[in-house]
């Protein structure tokens, strides 16, 4: 059987679903940290994940990354069932992750950090590295890392160790690493934790630009409601391991159970004084990354 042009077009029109979680359950002892969660992220979509502390958001993300093995259920990345695949292999399917603490590697310089992120695309073999062969690969990585440093305006920090940088700068380096890795699905765990309000507000446009550049889908955990509602196409709200609401930002923030369990009734948590909740967008436009104008 040969693939027809129609098949190819079909693939083009309906690219594989970045993330499909089916009936996922994680039990620690007797506690159900995640309890029968199903979640889907469509191509190019930004999905927000909200919920109070202990609702199971980070555990869910750790399952997608592979650090936590689910008790039952399945996780499918781009059509590949990765439930039993170890974390270091998942980036090869297109998964990228940014961590809450953006700790990076305190002992490596910013340039070296970026080169580590690029390693997957231009690996240097052990013997080539030891004997000093494979210089071309190393030069390529260094060149790309230099470009990224310039792009993100990190010149002053290029030869500083990550351990010496402020949290804000480390976040920018972390974003540069994401560009270096070119993931097709990005997991963001509280990207604005520990940075100032002004920078939080700058984060939204920055993430949109990155999305346009690389064309990834995003799963975003975030407590800053204005940021989530402005960025996300859809939001899942979790409570004690279960999904209690799912829909457009407007639908979710007006959902009775979400208000009761998470948001509370104060308006201040939902909107900043000068912003309003954006009008609901048409959900999940199916668009192929190819068609996007960069």
């Amino acid at each position, binding site marked *: 059987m040969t693939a027809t042009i129609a098949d190819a077009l079909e693939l083009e029109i309906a690219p594989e679903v970045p993330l499909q979680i089916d009936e996922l359950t994680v039990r620690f002892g007797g506690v159900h940290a995640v309890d029968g969660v199903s979640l889907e992220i469509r191509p190019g979509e930004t999905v927000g994940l909200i919920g109070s502390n202990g609702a199971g958001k980070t555990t869910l993300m750790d399952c997608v*990354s*592979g*650090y936590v093995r689910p008790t039952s259920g399945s996780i499918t990345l781009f059509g590949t069932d990765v439930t039993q695949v*170890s*974390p*270091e*292999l*998942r*980036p*090869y399917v297109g*998964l*990228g*992750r940014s*961590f809450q603490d953006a*700790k*990076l*590697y*305190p*002992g*490596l*310089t910013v340039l*070296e*950090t970026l*080169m*580590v*992120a690029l*390693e*997957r695309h231009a*690996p*240097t*073999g*052990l013997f*080539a*590295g*030891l*004997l*000093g062969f*494979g210089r071309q*690969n*190393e030069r390529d*990585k260094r060149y790309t890392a230099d470009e990224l440093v310039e792009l993100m305006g990190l010149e002053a920090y290029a*030869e500083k160790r990550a*351990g010496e940088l402020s949290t804000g700068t480390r976040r920018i380096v972390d974003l540069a*690493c994401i560009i270096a*890795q070119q993931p097709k699905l990005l997991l963001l765990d509280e990207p604005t934790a520990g940075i100032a309000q002004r920078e939080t507000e700058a984060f939204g446009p920055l993430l949109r630009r990155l999305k346009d550049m690389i064309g990834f889908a995003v799963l975003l955990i975030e407590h800053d409601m204005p940021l989530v509602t402005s960025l996300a196409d859809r939001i899942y709200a979790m409570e004690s391991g279960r999904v209690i609401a799912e829909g457009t930002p407007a639908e979710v923030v007006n959902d009775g159970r979400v208000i009761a369990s998470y948001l509370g009734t104060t308006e201040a948590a939902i909107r900043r004084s000068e912003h309003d909740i954006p009008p609901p967008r048409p959900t999940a436009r199916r668009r192929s990354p190819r068609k996007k104008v960069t």
Partner: protein
Amino acid sequence: MNFGLDVVILGVIQGLLYGALAIGLVLVYRAQRFVNFAHANIGVISSVLLGKLVLDEHWPYGLALPLAVGAGVAVALLVELTVIRRLFRSPRLVVMVASIFLAQFLLIPRLIRQINPDQQTLVNNGYPLPFHPSIKVGTLYLHGDDLLIVLVVPVLVAALACFLRFTAYGQAIRAAAENPEAARLAGISVKRMSTLVWGVAGLLSALTAILHSPKDSVFLVGGSGASLLVRALAAGLIAKMTNLPVAFAAGIGIGVVESVTFANEPSGGVVELVVFVIVMAALLLRSRELSKANRDASSGINFGAEPTPVPRRAARIPAIRRLTIGSSLGCLVLAAAAPVIPLFGLNTSAKAFLLTLVTSYALVGLSLCLLTGWGGQVSLGQFALVGVGAYAAERLAAHGIEFWAIALLAGAIGAVVAVAVGLPAIRIQGLFLAVTTLAFAVLAQGFLFQQSWIVGDPAGVFLPRPSLLHDERSVYWFGLALVVICTVLVRNFRQSGPGRMLIAVRDNDKAARSSGISATGARLVAFALAGFIAACAGVVYAYAQQRYVSTNFAPDNSFTMVTMAVIGGLGSIPGALLGAFAVFGIPVLFRGSQESQFIQFLVGGAGGLFVLLFMPRGIAGLVYDVRDAVVARLLRRADGLPAPPRIVPPLRQLWAVARGREAVPLS
């Protein structure tokens, strides 16, 4: 199989001692989350003092005992106040390394003749005991030393259990161990509890040492408590390093297993093999619990000696380039010319022999730079790998292989062995490679190097030199050539992808794995490379010594190697070489031979502690400070800016650091 009552009774008696030691280890681990390798050695002073007071000074036992035990407790408290408390907030791996230095340092009382009992009196009268009865159980005679253990240890353990369970202090200790933050909020001083725990541990260690001394000469002559420590560790691991009753029972169990094994298979150190298997099995079975408790303790270990990167702009300035190339070439020429320089008698073949040993230690330093500095994994068995290389060299030479090929093949064998030893520790992070490698060091000396099918002749082997390495000087140059080659390899490694990945895994293994880097793969590469280099060191060592036996590769040497690496500066290549030069090279200049163990221990343990507490970047740190200052100066000159403040001379820097101050540039 012989399961006689007498065998079991002897095992229980021995096991009581292991149990008591294990309790001390677990107490400190619970309170402070590190494996205290110095635990067994705290009691050395007590055992030495008791012998001296009773045998030479003719004190009554009842009077000497409290004094000797008091000395042990005092030493423990002193250690806690001066070292452990200073490292209260340091990564646990650093505290563990400090305990490795302490283990060496605390052996010093054994080397001061004035406080040791006269050897002849000791041999004639035996180690002092309070009473001398003999009881016959079946076919077995139990003597005073056995009965003392049977009487004292259970009482001691019961008293300790009551103390921990029923007194306010005991509850506070348990609370502080369980949750330091909550305990502090409840008004418990965690620091005072730590002192208390060390006092109790000191008491246990002192009594164990005194009880153990009559049975074994280990505490008094030669050797260290490494094999004792491994048994106690095995018991602690079975108890997940938390459960005191289980640790005690496991200690007794290990004693019985050991005794039964010995009764059935007394030759060839099979006992050591059994103990090794127990340690490995305990680690693997308990890996989940141990790594849960240890997760935050082990990540992000950076000993800080890694060089600050030279700005790329600076690397292009000719003056800086000339300086870099010139200084490394200068060092190389000096090292190559060393055995013909007619100073300090360096041109004699006796000194050439000692210099060759320095090159082999430098190679071990390089392997630790990679494994511990960049990989964050502490190895206490690196000298056992040197032994593997040395014995492999002899076997390979017997097959008529050329010496350069021997280095390559022996290195490969070392790599395989290192991976096999490291594999179980990969599942658990950080601290526990130290345990498996220590167990391996004890196994290597006690079992592997005793097997005729592995090493040929356990009584000692002879490695003939090929014609090219006919004299001491040419062996030295062979060693130096290997140092140069390995330095280049290690440097290439650090500057390419695999080296960066290793550091990434050390610093943040979750983030590294999320970028598609295999943490296990990176660590295995580190084990293999470090094993390769250590075994190469073994080949040099073997050609220098020519005749060697298993005691050449005793676990103590591995402890000394870690000290050497920290003094030089872990994580820095020049540091690795400078460490070997400072600890072993400089004494060669001034002494005829290395007979003085005392200076070795002093330089080793005390030097290591000093470096860890006051200048954690080691000698390399001073070198980099000077280099950075020079580079900054040249950069400013290149930019046409006024000269920066003058360079702080290293000695002045050292002095300022020793007084706990920031070094001020001379104006």
